[in-house]
C-alpha cells in the first residue's frame, strides 16, 4: 500500500522524498505555481503554491509529503492570496499582454486567468528596464522577469554555464547576465541551452520568431493552465 495524504478531501499517493506539489501534479491535481519546475530543485520564492497543511500555511513546492497530511489548496482564502501575489507580479514589471509575443504561452498570464484576476489592482511601478538584444539569436526583455530563478537554475545545474544570476535584495532584486559587459552576447549562452527554453514568461526569447503561432493554437488557447498538470507540456519543451 502506498502512502497518501489528502488534498481538498481527495487521497493523493506519494513516494518518499516527494514534495506535496510533485505528488499532487503527478496524480493530476493542479496547484498554482510559477517558480516550481519538475526538473529543478525547489526555489520556494513565488509563494503561489502555498497550501494549508494541517491548518498551517506552507509552500507546497518545498514541503515534503507525509502520511496522513490534510492539505487544502482550492479555497477562497488561498486563491485570493494567490491572486494578490499575481497582481503584485504584474505591477512590479511591465506586462503588456496584448503586445507580448508570449501571450497565450505565458504561465503568468495563464495563472492570472486561472485565478480570475480581472485587474492589476495595485499601482503600476512602470520600472525602466532596457532590453538586451546583443545576442544574435536571443533577446532578453527584462520588463517581464518575475525572478523565478528557473533560468539561473537551468544554466547552472543543467547547462553548466552560470549565464544568469539574481542580484540585489528585496524590491531591488533583479536578473543579471554573468559577463563583464553584462551582455548576453558576451556569454557562452546558446539556443540549445536548457535556460533558453525554461522562462515561464516572456523574458528569454528566440529572435525573429514572435507571433509565428496563430491565436487559437497557442498553449493556453487549447486548454487552461490547470489542465496542464505536467508543466513540461505547458512549456513545449518536449
Amino acid at each position, binding site marked *: 500500500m502506498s502512502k497518501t495524504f489528502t488534498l481538498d478531501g481527495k487521497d493523493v499517493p506519494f513516494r518518499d522524498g516527494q514534495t506535496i506539489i510533485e505528488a499532487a501534479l503527478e496524480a493530476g491535481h493542479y496547484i498554482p505555481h510559477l517558480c516550481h519546475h519538475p526538473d529543478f530543485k525547489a526555489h520556494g520564492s513565488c509563494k503561489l503554491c502555498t497550501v494549508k497543511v494541517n491548518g498551517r500555511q506552507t509552500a507546497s513546492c518545498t514541503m515534503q509529503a507525509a502520511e496522513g497530511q490534510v492539505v487544502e489548496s482550492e479555497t477562497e482564502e488561498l486563491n485570493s492570496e494567490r491572486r494578490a501575489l499575481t497582481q503584485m507580479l504584474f505591477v512590479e514589471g511591465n506586462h503588456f499582454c496584448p503586445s507580448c*509575443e508570449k501571450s497565450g504561452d505565458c504561465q503568468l498570464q495563464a495563472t492570472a486567468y486561472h485565478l480570475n484576476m480581472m485587474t492589476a489592482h495595485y499601482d503600476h511601478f512602470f520600472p525602466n528596464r532596457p532590453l538586451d538584444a546583443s545576442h544574435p539569436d536571443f533577446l532578453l526583455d527584462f520588463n517581464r522577469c518575475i525572478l523565478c530563478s528557473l533560468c539561473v537554475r537551468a544554466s547552472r545545474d543543467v547547462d553548466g554555464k552560470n549565464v544568469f544570476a539574481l542580484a540585489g535584495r528585496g524590491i531591488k532584486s533583479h536578473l543579471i547576465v554573468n559577463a563583464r559587459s553584462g551582455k548576453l552576447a558576451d556569454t557562452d549562452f546558446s539556443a540549445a541551452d536548457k535556460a533558453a527554453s525554461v522562462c515561464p514568461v516572456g523574458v528569454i526569447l528566440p529572435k525573429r520568431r514572435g*507571433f509565428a503561432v496563430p*491565436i487559437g493554437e497557442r498553449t493556453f488557447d487549447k486548454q487552461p493552465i490547470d489542465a496542464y498538470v505536467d508543466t513540461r507540456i505547458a512549456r513545449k519543451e518536449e
Partner: protein
Amino acid sequence: MSNLETAANPEKLRRVAIDPVSRVEGHGKVTLLLDDDNRVHQVRLHIVEFRGFEKFIQGRPYWEVPVMVQRLCGICPVSHHIAASKAMDMILGAEHLTPAAEKNRRLMHYGQIMQSHALHFFHLCSPDLLFGFSSEVARRNIVGVAAEYPDIARQGVLLRKYGQEVIRMTAGKRIHGTGAVPGGVNKALSREERDTLLADVYQMIAWSRDAVHLVKRLFEQNLEGYNAFGRFRAHQLSLVRADGAMDLYHGGLRARSMDGELLFDHFDYRHYWDKIFEDVKSWSYMKFPFLRSLGPEAGWYRVGPLTRVVNCDFIPTPFADKERRDFLAFDEGRAAGATLGFHWARMIEMLHAVECIKDLLQDEDIMGTELMVSGERAGRGVGVIEAPRGTLIHHYRVDENDLVTRANLIVSTTHNNQAMNEAVRQVAIQYLDGHEVTEGLLNHIEVAIRAFDPCLSCATHALGKMPLEVELVDAGGSRISALSRNADGEVAACA
C-alpha cells in the same frame, strides 16, 4: 483662407472654444476667434491625441511592432497592424509575399474597411440624423427616405459584424489579433472559415449596394443642404494601383491638385519623404503634412474615401465601379466635391471591400499553406496602406540587433489635419458669422468634423453626442459665456 489662421490682432478677437471631452484625456478642441462683429476671423482645430506614438516603439524588437502598434489606436488597430507588417516585410527583405499571405492580409484589410465604414455610417451617424441637420423641413424628407429602407439599422449591425468576423478569422481575434507577421501571415483561412464567410457574402453585397443607394436618395432629397455644406477645394492624395485602379492595400502615390491636374503619379511610397513634408505649428501637437512641391502654405491636401473614389481612374469591382460613375456624374459633379460626399464615397468603398472579399473567398489561394518569405535584411522599412480614413504611413529604422531605433507614423487624421480645419472654417463662416453661438450652429461643426471620420476619441460618440465645450471669450480674454454638451447629449451652460 490662410489669413484666418493667424489673425493680425488676435488679442482683439472673441474666442469660441469647442472642446470635445476633456483636455486631460488628450482630446481636441475647436477654437473660433470672432471679431467685434461676431465674424469668424480665426479657426483652429486642436488635436493632442497622437503625441508620443513613436516613443512607444523605440527600442522594441521589430517583429513585435505590428502587434504593438495596434495599441496606438482603438479605432482602427488592424490598419496599423497591416501597415507595420508591410514596413517590416521590407526590413526582412520580403519583397513579394506568397499569394496566400498577401491574399489573407488583403482579406483582413477589407474586413477592417467594412466594419469601420459600417460603424461610422450606420452607428455613429445614423443616416436620418446625418442629413437632417439643417432644417426641420429637410429633416422630414430625410425621415421619409429612411422609411423607405426600414431594415437599414439591422443591416448596418450585420454588415459590421461580418467585417469583424473576417478580422477574427484572419487575425485570430476581433481586436489585438496577430495574423500579419513580418514576411507574411501566421495563418490562412481554413476551409470551414472560408465556407462560413462565403455563405453570407452575396447578402452583404446586396445590403452594401442598398446603402449606397440610400445615401444617393438622401442627397437627392437635400440638394442645396449637402452641396453648400462646408464645401472647400483641396489637393488630393491616395494610393492607386499601377493601372490607375483603386487599391486600398498597395500601390503608388498619386497626388492631384484641386483643379484635377496630376501633381505626381505612381510614386514609390518607399521614398514618400521626397514628396511629403510635415510642418509643425506652435498651437497644435499634431503635425501638418504638405506636398513639398507646393510648400507649407498651399501644399495641404485631403485623404480618405472621397479622395480615393475621385482620385482613382476606376474601381476594379463591377458594382462599386458603377456606383462610382453615378457619384461622379451626380448633380454635374458637385456631390464629388462636397464635404458630405465623404459619406457617399464611404459606402461605395464598403461595397468595393465586400466585392473584394467575395473574390478572395472564391480564390483557393486564401487557404494556401505557403505563408512566409524572407530575403535580404534591410535597415529601413516603409509600409503604406489606404486605411478606412485615408493614407497611413509607417516608417521604421531597425538596428543590427533587431531593435527599432526610429519610427515615423503619419496617420490619416494627420494627413487631413489642415483639410478638417478648412471644413470647419467654411462651416463657421457659413453658419456662425453674425450669429450668437447656439447649439445648432455647433452641431454643424460637429457634422463637418465627422465627415472625415477622424480617429479621435471624441468622435466615437454617436452624432449629436460628441462631448463639446463651448466657450465665448471676449477680446480681453475673459469668458463671457459658455455652453457644454456631455456624452449623453445634454447641453448646459458652464459656470
